[in-house]
């Protein structure tokens, strides 16, 4: 288990009133700060908001934006929207999974790179698209996607 910067967790908790309704935004901030939700941080949230730890863990497990294991430092995100699907996103996924040796949703062993999917980015005219750390690359083919890596 990684050592958690408790003062950072404390600052996140202090930034909002200790009410249960702020559970999701607090977890989102912890996720952004640590790229995952460390167990110690979740217990600290439960204590501060006075909600059962089970509820904190269940909310943490429910939302896709939250993760118990660290997400990659760099993220390759393949859009799986309908327009991208029709224009060949499936072949991009296959080609990237093969090239990286990762399945969708996984992070490389050294924690440097994560391969993810998103349901739609709204850039349908550029379909199929892949983002690298938020930068959008459109009109991709399996070959061009390999070049991104």
């Amino acid at each position: 288990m990684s050592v958690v910067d408790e003062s950072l967790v404390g600052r996140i908790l202090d930034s909002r009133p200790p009410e249960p309704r702020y559970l999701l935004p607090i977890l989102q901030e912890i996720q952004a700060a640590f790229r995952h939700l460390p167990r110690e941080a979740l217990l600290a949230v439960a204590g501060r908001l006075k909600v059962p730890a089970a509820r904190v863990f269940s909310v943490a497990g429910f939302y896709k934006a939250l993760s118990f294991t660290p997400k990659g430092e760099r993220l390759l995100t393949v859009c799986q929207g309908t327009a991208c699907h029709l224009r060949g996103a499936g072949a991009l996924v296959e080609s990237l999974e093969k090239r990286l040796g990762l399945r969708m949703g996984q992070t490389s062993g050294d924690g440097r790179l994560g391969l993810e999917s998103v349901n739609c980015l709204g850039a349908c005219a550029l379909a199929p698209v892949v983002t690298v750390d938020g930068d959008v690359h459109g009109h991709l083919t399996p070959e061009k996607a390999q070049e991104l890596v």
Partner: protein
Amino acid sequence: MDRLKDPIELEALIGRLAEAPSPRGRLWVCGGPGCLAAGAGRIHAAIREAAEARGLGDGYRADLTGCLGLCEKGPLVGVEPGDYVVGGVTLEDCEGLVGETLLNGRPAGRRATGADGAIDQGHPFYEPQTRLITRRFGRIVPESLDDYLKTGGYSALALALGRLSPLEVSERVERSGLRGRGGGGFPAGRKWASCRLAEGAVKYVLANGDEGDPGAFMNRSLMEGDPFSIIEGMTLGAYAVGAAVGFVYVRHEYPLSVERLNGAIGSAERAGLLGENILGSGFSFRLETVLGGGAFVCGESTALMASIEGREGQPRVKYVRSTERGLWDSPTLLQNVETWANVPPIVGRGPGWFRSMGTGDNPGTKVFSLVGQVRRSGLVEMPLGTPIRSLVFGVGGGPRPGRGFKAVQIGGPSGGCLPSEALDLPLDFDNLAKAGAIMGSGGLIVMDDLSCMVDVARYFTGFLMGESCGKCTPCREGLTSLHGILDDLCRGRGRKGDPLELGKVASMLSKTALCGLGQSAANPLLSTLRHFGEEYREHAEEGFCRSGRCQGLFWPEINHELCVGCGACLAACPAGAISGEKKAPHEIDLAACVSCGACLPACRFGAARAVRKGARPERRRDS
């Protein structure tokens, strides 16, 4: 801006701003989702830089604005005066746009304007549109309160707080016939009246901006292109039903929407248009944004409320309406952000004016995102009741070169696929429901002859299987079972009785699921089964995919009459199975072909097509 103390002061300010002179020249860089992805931010910076280098003063402006619509040609830059759009702008074009277009009023060089030249309002993409919700896109800086006021914003609130009672505001919406723009088309007025009459010391108004349908970006475009219109609508709603607090729930993937809304909320508060004692009327309303956690089901009303409360976004059974007991068990008025944006013009200009657009039971307009296998993808606003054909073929220009139209998918994962026979159907809530689709939030995805309907059903079923919250068994198990059968069909492992089995499970799912997500989850499957049953039969009984989509279930074939020898299929083939001289018909060596289908979409002349698989010819090459 100083705090406005009463409606009269606000109306005077709106008047002054409206009469203020416009800049001599203006470039509007499209800040819609598509153009931002295509690099509009860098274009904007380059234009600014070029303008600064020339020392242009306040008489000339270059700003990011809301979505200009024609995503296909992005990045777009709108030009004033002249009222036209320049497409396919590159960084190299920015200098010319400033030096020639902005300063001298001449359309920039050919490179900047692309093959279409300046695209004006008479272009087939823009001409048929009626712009109400999107009317400020390309006219204002979205986060500027002055720009919103200048274009008539907040005049409805001035009217309401100055001269109308809450009941009168509510009645205007009730009489307008406005229907919810988020999916089902429930009459907004009924909700307003029910929430207004509900007893409760605390009431809430909520906006649903959790736009989760893949292929839909109308709500995002609205939140980022005209955030004040949503805020003003919600303020009017809060005044009408007696709510003091509101929330806008925004999809996790839309951080820019949250930023724009928060910026707009801050400006409105400073001007006294939100917060305590709005315009000195004694009416107070506080508004906050909530960023979602990346769960599609949170677009469902009760799940959305659970999520705002800080819980898992699981729906509940609706024994009691949310307008009576919703958020924290208090009466709650929840509407889609587009529904809210309809409210200011309805209150300001009256229900009669609103009813002049659209049809009797479906008044007003609807914003659509038109995407998929269509020539012109983009954001489109049309009066309700417009035939599907004029959207797909008129505005969108029909399927891409060499391809034929097969279906249009409407309403996202809860919607359905409609065949060409349905093209003359008017786009409204009732007609779509009858045909087996739904309006949904307004995503229109065009599918051509290379889109396999079984694969499309598998796609949506897989999507919903991943997004099912797992609370009720029919949805959790039903979707898994449907997806398994569909996956088998697409992989050539289908069995004769599969289509029948799919129908049975789908019907069970629709009848017994707990919430709207589950009840509608089989719609993509049921609508494709109904309209494209032959494709299911071919997959199940012949292991044949006529669309050339399901790998291994077809052979590609080149029609020599149509082939012009352009070499596109040859370049796309990963197996090196295609050969041919330039400008001479090409050949496919089936012994080397892996039946992947890459050559089919590459052909712009409709020469490559999928045919039934016979016996595989013997391999002629070592591999």
